[in-house]
């Protein structure tokens, strides 16, 4: 009799014997996997980036964010303390907060006006005692026990992270010393918001995170990059992979070694460069004093901190299904910036975002994979640049950071 895929899938869902150098394609197209990730990763013992502290400017303010697909609210109460909780009412489960952000002393659910303080505590139940002695809620009923799940919050240099899990280690420990110091390097002063935008990615969330951690593609996919020699693998630089594998840093120095490996390799990316008519686009200053012109940093599962010359941004992902993900960008400078520096950051913002000279391809490439591998669920992706290593390295022709992602992923998914 006809043998059903369900059964077959259950059998085939074993990680390949090769380990981290191979990734099975069913991970991107199985809807059960997607649901599992929401529970085990995003609602599990991981820290998700929620927003910048600067996005909650004053007391009695709130903004929406998410823990994977789960909607959450981040608030700053009247004493300036930050709180985070699920955006779900204790009563019938309505969203508690509808606006992206705003100011409020308390939160009132629109559906039946149950009220909450900014810590997410249920403080009022409309007509709890009924009306004129009739109706209302029995004394033994404890709706407070069904309140929105509260997040543990920790902030690092103005970045707000949250988790639902008591089992998650403290944030600094989760990040490790090197990642934390690389975050501090960028977040060196109070943040001034410059603006934001989002992209809808036609792919599974993991494909975008792999792209971020994939130091191998940078100079090959982004040919503006290479053509204008803004960055070449031949430039000095390297990667850092955290012990957990889940976090990484990729960096390179601004100076160009002038290597000719590209021309020798004779690859598409090596077509001879032409000059910009308006080179001021790239005019940058070494604001961090260490000569590093590019630093891409990721924190498992879905956070990115980016320094592209003087253009700074944080990104976070919101999974919206098996093959759709929202990418949220927030660009910033520092309150200490003068006008020229702000203008510089805005000009260099031409390099990033959905229209960015060196980032537009990243919006599409994960989708190219999604479309090709859905009909190859039982085949394997090859992740063996730099061997099987998941360690830090002083070169970027490696997929160590991608393997690191899968190391952390497998641990959490129990695969």
């Amino acid at each position: 009799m006809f043998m059903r895929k369900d059964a077959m899938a259950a059998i085939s869902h074993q990680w390949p014997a090769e380990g981290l150098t191979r990734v099975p394609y069913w991970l991107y197209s199985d809807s059960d996997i997607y649901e599992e990730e929401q529970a085990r990763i995003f609602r599990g013992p991981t820290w998700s980036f929620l927003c910048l502290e600067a996005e909650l400017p004053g007391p009695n303010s709130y903004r929406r964010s998410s823990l994977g697909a789960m909607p959450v609210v981040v608030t700053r109460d009247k004493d300036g303390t930050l709180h985070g909780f699920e955006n779900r009412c204790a009563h019938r489960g309505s969203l508690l907060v509808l606006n992206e952000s705003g100011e409020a002393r308390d939160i009132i659910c629109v559906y039946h006006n149950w009220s909450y303080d900014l810590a997410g505590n249920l403080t009022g139940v409309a007509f709890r005692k009924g009306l004129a002695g009739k109706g209302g809620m029995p004394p033994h009923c404890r709706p407070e026990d069904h309140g929105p799940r509260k997040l543990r919050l920790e902030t690092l240099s103005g970045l707000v992270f949250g988790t639902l899990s008591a089992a998650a280690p403290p944030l600094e420990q989760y990040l490790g010393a090197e990642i934390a110091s690389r975050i501090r390097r960028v977040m060196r002063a109070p943040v001034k918001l410059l603006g934001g935008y989002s992209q809808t990615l036609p792919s599974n969330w993991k494909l975008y995170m792999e792209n971020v951690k994939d130091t191998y593609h940078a100079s090959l996919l982004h040919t503006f990059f290479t053509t204008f020699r803004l960055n070449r693998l031949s430039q000095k630089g390297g990667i850092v992979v955290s012990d957990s594998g889940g976090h990484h840093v990729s960096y390179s120095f601004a100076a160009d070694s002038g290597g000719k490996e590209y021309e020798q390799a004779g690859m598409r990316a090596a077509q001879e460069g032409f000059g910009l008519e308006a080179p001021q686009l790239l005019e940058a200053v070494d604001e961090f004093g260490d000569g590093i012109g590019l630093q891409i940093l990721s924190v498992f599962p879905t956070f990115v901190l980016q320094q592209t010359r003087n253009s700074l941004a944080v990104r976070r992902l919101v999974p919206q299904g098996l093959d759709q993900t929202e990418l949220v960008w927030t660009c910033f400078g520092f309150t200490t910036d003068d006008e020229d520096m702000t203008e510089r950051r805005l000009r260099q913002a031409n390099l990033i975002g959905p229209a960015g000279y060196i980032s537009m391809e990243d919006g599409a490439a994960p989708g190219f994979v999604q479309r090709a591998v859905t009909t190859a669920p039982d085949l394997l992706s090859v992740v063996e640049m730099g061997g099987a290593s998941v360690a830090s390295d002083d070169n970027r022709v490696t997929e160590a950071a991608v393997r690191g992602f899968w190391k952390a992923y497998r641990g959490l998914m129990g695969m």
Partner: protein
Amino acid sequence: MNIELQLKVQDLNVRYAQAIDDNQLEAWPDFFTEDGRYRVTTAENFERGLPLGMIYATSRAMLRDRVRSLRDANVYEAQRYRHIVAPPLLTADEGRGARARTGFLVARIMHTGETTLFASGRYEDHVVLDDGVARFAEKVVILDSRLIDTLLAIPL
């Protein structure tokens, strides 16, 4: 109401949109003055007074650079736009030109045939007569949505 000017500005918008929709990107910078400014931003940034743009150019030269990058460097799937631009609302009629606010919709058609409502918003334009020819001294594209599907390659 200055019918002549009204129609001149509308004609500029129509030719601008047709050039883009017909993939005449090389002609695009010439719709601007030599030091013309072009910026694509979101209504959210605009209303909150945040200066960030998705695209930000302060000269025709920067627009030419973008065209050359789109032609020679950037990777994106074959696609085309279809602009529908409302009649302009002239908000001020200055000596050398006019301020115009113009609503628009843009459909995006992928090589696969897939058609989506890709963008909506308004143009805040400063149109001047540049030795007889109407050009944009400034064009600010204010998108109603903060969300771009996949990427923004072709200018709006």
